C-alpha cells in the first residue's frame, strides 16, 4: 500500500488549500502527484515534450479550478487524473495519433488478459477488478485500451482490427454492465 492510498485525504486537503490560493500547497501537490500524473500523460501522449506540456497545463488548470472542485466530488486524486487525461487526449488529438505511435508495441501491455490482476488489491479497487473480470473479453479489452492508452473508438478499431461499430457496441455494453456491477 503506497502513501497515496494510506492517506487518501491528503490530496483532497492539498487541493482545498490550492483552492484558497496557496502556491505552497500547489508545490506540495506537485511533489506528491507529479510522477503519477506525468506517467499517465506520457502513456497517452507518448512524447516527453508533449507530456511535460500537458503536465504544465494541467497544473495551471488545477491552480485555477481547485476552488471549484467541490465537496460533491470528493475524490481529489480522481479529479487530478481526469484533468491530466483530458489534457493529454486533447494534445494527442491535435498532434495526430499517427505521428506519435512510432512504436506499435508501446502500450500494448493493456491487452494482456491478466492485466486486471495488476490492479492493487486495495478495497476501492477490488470492486472494479471484480466487475471487470465479469465483462466479456472484448468489452474489457476495449475499455482498458481507451482508459490506459487514451484511444478513441476509431483508434481502438484500428488497433485491434475490429469493425468500428463492434468497438462502440462493446464499450457501451461494457459500461452498462460495469455500472450495474459497481452500484
Amino acid at each position, binding site marked *: 500500500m503506497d502513501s497515496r492510498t494510506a492517506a487518501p485525504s491528503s490530496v483532497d486537503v492539498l487541493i482545498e488549500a490550492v483552492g484558497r490560493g496557496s502556491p505552497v500547497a500547489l508545490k506540495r501537490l506537485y511533489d506528491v502527484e507529479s510522477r503519477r500524473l506525468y506517467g499517465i500523460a506520457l502513456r497517452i501522449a507518448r512524447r516527453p515534450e508533449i507530456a511535460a506540456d500537458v503536465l504544465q497545463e494541467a497544473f*495551471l488548470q488545477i*491552480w485555477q479550478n481547485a476552488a471549484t472542485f467541490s465537496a460533491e466530488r470528493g475524490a481529489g486524486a*480522481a479529479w487530478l487524473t481526469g484533468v491530466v487525461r483530458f489534457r493529454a487526449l486533447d494534445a494527442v488529438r491535435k498532434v495526430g495519433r499517427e505521428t506519435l505511435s512510432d512504436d506499435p508495441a508501446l502500450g500494448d501491455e493493456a491487452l494482456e488478459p491478466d492485466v486486471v490482476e495488476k490492479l492493487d488489491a486495495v478495497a476501492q479497487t477490488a470492486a472494479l477488478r471484480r466487475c471487470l473480470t465479469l465483462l466479456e473479453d472484448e468489452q474489457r479489452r476495449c475499455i482498458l485500451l481507451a*482508459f490506459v492508452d487514451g484511444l478513441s473508438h476509431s483508434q481502438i478499431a484500428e488497433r485491434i482490427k475490429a469493425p468500428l461499430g463492434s468497438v*462502440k457496441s462493446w*464499450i*457501451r455494453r461494457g459500461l452498462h454492465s460495469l455500472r450495474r456491477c459497481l452500484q
Partner: protein
Amino acid sequence: MMIPDDRDELHALAGEFVLGVLEANEASEVAAALATNAELRRAVAFWEVQLHPLSELTSPAEPPPGTWQAIEARITKPASKPVAPSFWNNLALWRWSTAGFAAAAGLALWIALTPAPGPSFVAVLHPPQQDQVSWVATAGRYGLLVRAVAGATPPSDRAFELWAIPPGATRPRSLGVIPRTASSSWLRCPPICAMARRSRSASNLWAARPRTSQPDRWCSLAPYRQCEADRRVPSRPRSDD
C-alpha cells in the same frame, strides 16, 4: 449527437466521455452540457472515481527537470502586459432579468478585466460605484465559470444574466443566465465563441494568449480556434449520430 434523457444512456455517454473515446466534437458537446445538466455531472464524477484505479496500470515517470519551475513562473508572474481587451472591456453590462425574458429592466453592473496573474482571463464583476466584488468570472475546464463571492442573490423571481456588447455592435448579447441557487455556475462557450467569430478584435483577444499555452479543449475563453475546428472538421469519420 444529443445528450440523452434516458438515465442509462446518459450514464453510458458519461462513461464514454470519461474513457476518452468520444471524438473531439462529441466530447465538446458533453463538456458544454455539464454546465447545465446536474445528472450528467454526477454521472461523469461517478465514472471518474470508479475508473480511477485503472490509472494504476500506468507506471509513474519522472517529469523533465524544470517542469515545476515553468509552472511556478506562470502562476506567480503577472502577465507582462495585459492585451488591450476590447471584447472584455465591452463586456460592460449586467442586468437583472427574469430568466428567459430579454426585455427585463436592467441594472447595469460593470465588469473589468484584471491584470491576469496567469494565462487565463479573469473578470471581476461588481455593482457600479461599489468596491465589493460580487462575482468572479474565470476561464475554466468547461467554459466560463461565474462565481458569486458576496451577497449576489437576486429576488426570488429573478435571475442574473451576463451580457456582453460585442465590438462594433450597439446591442448587448446574452452570454447566459446564471442559476440563482448556485454559488457558482458554468456558462457555455458557444455564444462566446460565436461572438468571437463575428468580431475580428475579439478573435485578436483570443489569439493573444501566450503562445506557450495549449488552446483549451473545453471552450474556455481561449479556444476560439478549437471551437472553430470542432464545428468544421470532425477528426474522424463518424458512423452514428
